[in-house]
């Protein structure tokens, strides 16, 4: 009995991975064949990008500030508080900026995509769209995924800048250190691989949060309760995948740029 259950669960997992892969691939390739709904891209870019700006700015400033506080406390033991700027900027740009922004935006937008599309599925609006001769993958899914990718890229830059600025505020106002030194250290020790790491990651994270949110939404079953379930699954899966993929990308990029470091 237990083996049968295990077998069924394993099959379901393999089937879900297969379905998700096909779904994500189809959404990706839709960009190369007309019709392309540019107005939908712009609308989603506004919802995802402009709509998430406030939470990204706030979380960026707070994270940079916390980094400055924590690092100054530790670095002062070695008499190295002067490198606070370098520590904050590298941590924000290489790691925390992309990951935090990815998780914050997935919390807001993967859930919103899953619930919006899920509601459309259970009220037959998706079927109605197909019946009216419009492909919901092209009209609803592809614009959401590519808007997520584009907007997460820019939101990550905003988050990085806010984090460095927040660290600077804490350094000057609370740690009473020199601001010029903080910002010059933050800038001077940045290398090309750091920038590449920080800007490549959001492209993958945007794809993950957009495709996961849409996948769970489009596969919603079980009425309004199912919509709630899809929303939770979308946020949890997107967040976990972002952290896992971050590990993989970091490892790959560190290997690729090992000569630069």
């Amino acid at each position, binding site marked *: 009995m237990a083996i049968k259950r295990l077998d069924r669960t394993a099959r379901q997992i393999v089937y879900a991975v297969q379905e998700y892969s096909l779904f994500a691939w189809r959404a990706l390739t839709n960009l190369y064949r007309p019709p392309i709904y540019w107005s939908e891209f712009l609308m989603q870019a506004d919802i995802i990008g402009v709509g998430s700006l406030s939470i990204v700015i706030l979380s960026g400033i707070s994270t940079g500030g916390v980094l400055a506080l924590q690092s100054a406390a530790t670095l002062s033991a070695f008499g190295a508080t002067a490198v606070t700027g370098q520590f904050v900027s590298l941590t924000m740009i290489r790691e925390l900026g992309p990951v935090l922004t990815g998780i914050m935006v997935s919390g807001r937008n993967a859930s919103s995509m899953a619930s919006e599309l899920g509601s459309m599925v259970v009220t037959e609006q998706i079927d109605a769209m197909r019946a*009216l001769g419009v492909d919901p993958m092209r009209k609803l899914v592809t614009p959401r995924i590519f808007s997520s990718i584009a907007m997460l890229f820019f939101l990550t830059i905003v988050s990085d800048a806010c984090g460095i600025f927040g660290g600077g505020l804490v350094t000057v106002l609370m740690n009473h250190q020199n601001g010029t030194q903080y910002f010059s250290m933050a800038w001077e020790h940045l290398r090309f691989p750091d920038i590449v790491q920080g800007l490549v990651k959001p492209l993958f994270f945007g794809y993950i949060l957009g495709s996961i949110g849409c996948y769970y939404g489009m596969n919603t079953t079980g009425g309004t309760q199912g919509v709630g379930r899809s929303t939770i699954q979308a946020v949890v899966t997107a967040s976990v995948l972002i952290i896992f993929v971050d590990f993989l990308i970091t490892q790959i990029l560190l290997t690729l740029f090992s000569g630069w470091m």
Partner: protein
Amino acid sequence: MDVSSTFSQAALPSPDLPGSGPVVAFHNVTIAFEGPPVLENITFSVAPVETRILLGPAGVGKSVLLKLIIGLLRPDAGSVTLFGQDISSMPEEKLFPLRARTGMIFQEGALFDSLSVRDNVAYQLIQQGKVTDADIDARVREALRFVGLEETFSLFPDSLSGGMRRRVAIARGLINDPELLLYDSPTGGLDPVTSTNIIELIVKQRDVNRTPSLMVTHRLQDAFALCTHHYDTECGCMVPLANGEVDPNTTFLMLNEGRLIFDGTLHQLLHSEDPFVREFLQ
């Protein structure tokens, strides 16, 4: 009530016009969802200018059958032909142009709640991008006038009643002059007055535009009204056919336990010896 002796066939053209193939044809169609088949070995067709009424108890697979017609669901076995093309395994991309030639009215209307009535009704035209805004407005007003809801042009679906939503859905289904109409329980859960209004619209569409259609319902009174009435363009209303005649282009199908147990005219339905048909009619 013995209604069988009340009706006779009206002298109207036969649906099986020579030289014209069926608009829809099912051949031994079977479909299942994790369990026993929902529909099994279903074979029937819808001829040009024919209106078919699909009867059956709730949950018997009537809506599934409608979705199979336009490829929203795919059969596990058998073939579905729409406008002469086998769509059983047709890629989704190739299905969209065929679906655009049909009009489907969903059970609860399935209006897009983030769009106004105007944008809902004009959805197909807007997506096609071939019609100017002024023409779209004119055609939307004409479609809304047809269903008697011109005043809802700028409203949103959440401010409409259930009956109004169904009528807007009918307007949306009609705007692109479909070659086939599919009604999924258009009167389900509505009060008798609203139901009659909607049946009148269906009769009007049948008699004025001669569009072939398939209507799913489990309400006998609606099915019989469709069969025994015609649309009088002079009075602009639905009136009973003279001398108890019935529309010969309006025929019946009945599903039970996944099988098609009846396919014929109202007269044949009323004289059927099938125990389930008799029980259903009573």
